[in-house]
């Protein structure tokens, strides 16, 4: 492995290496978007722990690796990745090291799937330009976010899902991102447009074929029109040597409902920014997360729920189970803007430390600029509740069994909110394996 110490601009330049070779798009606006992003990459610096937003997450190890642009198109076959497939998902887009793999993907039959569009972005770009242009790069701001800027600078392909007006997709759509190359930098991009009255479930799933060091820098944009419902399940099970950085921006229309369950199991260092803008009245979101980490892993989740309009509802529950010498970070900001009256928001951050070396930094944060609102948040850090352990022991369970049961239950509460049964079972199994002692 070639290791070179680079910092600041030069490091970003090294990450940008592959960019100049991107073929220019026939869409002028897309070329402009990429050019703007390249400018921002040039102007921004890699964040350090002196930046409030990165106070607990030191990404300097990332700067110690040199990354190459992704080599040639993948020759993976179904047999290589089949084990990651979800039986419920009729449509699936697979990306290998960031590149679309048509041989592994299944696109919907437009005639039978009520007009649902699930395609790779570059193929669909010209046919759906009018639908895409108002959204792509418009929700995930990159002015002050170097990683979003970097992703946008590389924007060439990605996953596109359009749920047309009043379309109700019965089955989930599976977006599978497979990492296969060490020291590769990939920039996955997803755009989900849920038109008014539509309903859809999307699974965004990051997996690795082997334990390599690589970097994933993903951006996902989700736009919900009036009365749309999106169920977004995100699973990050990258290699425990990998760096996973992701920005997800969600914008909601009137009376729309966004539900998100995100689970972080993998990566050496992961950082997930989820920004949900309740941009119209009566919008509702439920945002749940679980980080289950051990060894030297660091999982950092930053969420912002931005109540911009009246009568919004938000519910958030974030949990971390931290073993080994791992480090969990949570920063959950609830913002209630001046005219967002009658906002109803609640948030909880609960953390379980399983090892003396494990650590957690949590900051549930409320910023309220309207008076007629109901907001509450809470945070706890600690071990299992002794009374609960005692209760189970008094019913004849051994100490170990009681603790295992309670630890599992702590994590399973979030997993239970995943609506795709096969994925839920797999994740339950993962929680079980990681939390059980004997």
């Amino acid at each position, binding site marked *: 492995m070639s290791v070179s110490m680079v910092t600041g601009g030069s490091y970003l330049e090294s990450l940008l290496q592959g960019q100049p070779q991107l073929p220019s798009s026939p869409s002028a606006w897309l070329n402009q978007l990429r050019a703007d992003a390249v400018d921002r990459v040039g102007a921004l610096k890699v964040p350090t722990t002196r930046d*409030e937003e990165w106070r607990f997450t030191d990404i300097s190890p990332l700067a110690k690796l040199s990354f190459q642009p992704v080599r040639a198109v993948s020759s993976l076959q179904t047999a290589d990745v089949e084990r990651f497939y979800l039986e419920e998902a009729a449509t699936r887009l697979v990306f290998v090291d960031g590149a679309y793999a048509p041989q592994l993907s299944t696109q919907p039959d437009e005639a039978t799937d009520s007009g649902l569009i699930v395609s790779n972005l570059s193929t669909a770009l010209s046919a759906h330009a009018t639908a895409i242009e108002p959204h792509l790069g418009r929700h995930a701001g990159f002015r002050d976010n170097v990683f979003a800027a970097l992703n946008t600078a590389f924007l060439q392909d990605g996953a596109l899902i359009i749920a047309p007006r009043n379309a109700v997709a019965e089955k989930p759509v599976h977006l599978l991102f497979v990492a296969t190359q060490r020291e590769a930098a990939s920039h996955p991009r997803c755009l989900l447009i849920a038109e008014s009255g539509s309903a859809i479930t999307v699974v965004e799933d990051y997996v690795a074929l082997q334990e390599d060091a690589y970097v994933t820098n993903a951006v996902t944009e989700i736009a919900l029109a009036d009365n749309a419902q999106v169920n977004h399940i995100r699973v990050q099970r990258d290699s425990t040597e990998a760096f996973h950085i992701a920005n997800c921006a969600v914008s909601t229309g009137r009376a729309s409902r966004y539900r998100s369950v995100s689970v972080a199991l993998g990566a050496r260092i992961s950082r997930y920014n989820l920004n949900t803008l309740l941009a119209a009245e009566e919008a509702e979101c439920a945002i749940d997360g679980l980080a289950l980490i051990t060894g030297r892993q660091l999982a950092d989740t930053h969420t912002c729920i931005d109540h911009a309009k009246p009568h919004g509802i938000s519910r958030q529950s974030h949990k971390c189970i931290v073993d080994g010498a791992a480090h969990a970070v949570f920063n959950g900001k609830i913002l209630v803007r*001046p*005219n967002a*009256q009658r906002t109803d928001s609640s948030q909880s951050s609960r*953390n379980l*430390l*399983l*090892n*003396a070396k*494990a*650590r*957690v*930094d*949590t*900051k*549930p*944060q*409320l*910023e*309220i*600029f*309207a*008076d*007629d*609102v*109901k*907001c*509450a*948040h*809470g*945070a*706890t*850090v*600690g*071990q299992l509740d002794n009374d609960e352990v005692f209760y189970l022991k008094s019913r004849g369970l051994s100490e170990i069994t009681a603790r295992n049961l309670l630890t599992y239950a702590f994590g399973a509460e979030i997993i239970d909110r995943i609506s795709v049964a096969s994925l839920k079972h797999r994740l339950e199994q993962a929680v079980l394996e990681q939390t059980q002692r004997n």
Partner: protein
Amino acid sequence: MSAVLQNLVNQPYKHGFVTEIESDVAPRGLSEDTIRLISAKKNEPGWLLEFRLKAYQQWLKMEEPKWPNVKYPKIDFQAISYYSAPKPKQKLSSMDEVDPELLRTFEKLGVPMHERAALAGVAVDVIFDSVSVATTYKQKLAEVGITFCSISEAVQMHPDLVRQYLGTVVPVGDNYYAALNSAVFTDGTFCFIPKGVKCPMDLSTYFRINTEESGQFERTLIIAEDGASVSYLEGCTAPKFDTNQLHAAVVELIALDNADIKYSTVQNWYAGDENGLGGIYNFVTKRGLAKGINSRISWTQVETGSAITWKYPSCVLQGENSVGEFYSVAVTNNYQQADTGTKMIHIGKNTRSTIVSKGISAGHSNNSYRGLVRIAPTATGARNYSQCDSMLIGDKCSASTFPYIQVRNQGAKVEHEASTSKIGEDQLFYFAQRGIDSEEAVSMIINGFCKDVFQQLPMEFAVEATKLLGFKLEGSVG
């Protein structure tokens, strides 16, 4: 004087007058020479001058903190006078010798310090601009071995004690304003409770900024030896000026084994007018070191004044089983900004801390709670409980909560809860239906909201705080 009386009657801020006392004011500006001047005027020993100069050198290299949720124009530190003292009566031995004008001020405040001091048996130290003008009950306290005097006097009379503890809890380079204070502090209170002594009365300091161009940089040092205990009260006011005055105090508390220090503040510095003009910048560093086993440090504050408040009374819980407490009510109205909270640093085993913070925002004000709970790897069995509630009155103000929770020990338990509420139409209607008008209803609801904190205040302060709040929020509802 009739103009002053006129002021007292007409002005919403009751303490906004200037007392006409001739002052000895140092020229504006800050340099090593200024520091040498202060040190010379106070006839200080060489080590203290060194302490000041070291702080000054550090301060020069530091930058003003940017992270608080407050906005203000850049302060010109060269436009401030760093020393101001009333010329006559510098050496007073009792409250009787204090200028009657000043005593009358206390009466008008509803805090008749003179009489109340006698009645309630509260010992009072009065700091007027830069110097201590009077300390009461000194003799009586000395009989039980307690030293209670101005810090200038302590430097002369008990130099070893001051030298041993000064700057040990808040190091000279701790933060920008603490460094500034360490360089230029002029006076403050010193209190030493020896081993096993329970202080027989509440000790109190009354701070007043009087001069327009002067800053106030007082320094308080309280030491409670093994098994000692003390309850200390602090009150603050300032006249109304269209300009902003800087108040950058440092308070250090040290509690040894089984010692107990309770520190209560009612802060009512001038907050500026209804358009945000004028008012005090209150940038204060307060920290207590619970050094000994089973020691306890408790902060209670009612913050109603100041244009900007930037203040985090903190506890470093070093001794095993030591306890830290923070009870706070912060009220902001008009264009006030407050960024206040606490830090609870758990180092010792089985240390416990409690945080109760109540923020009330009205007008165009901005009220933030910022708190840190840190559990060090050594703090096995540590416990923290925090509760931070906000109440908003009107839709032009804001309330924010920034709790930082950092846990490095598996065997600790930290709980944080926060909520917001408002004074609702339905509540006011319920009161009205029982014949209670909205002003009275608001006052009751607010006092109910703050009850958990007021209960921690000594009786006479609680009464004062209640009055202050009602007055503060007059006309902000309905």
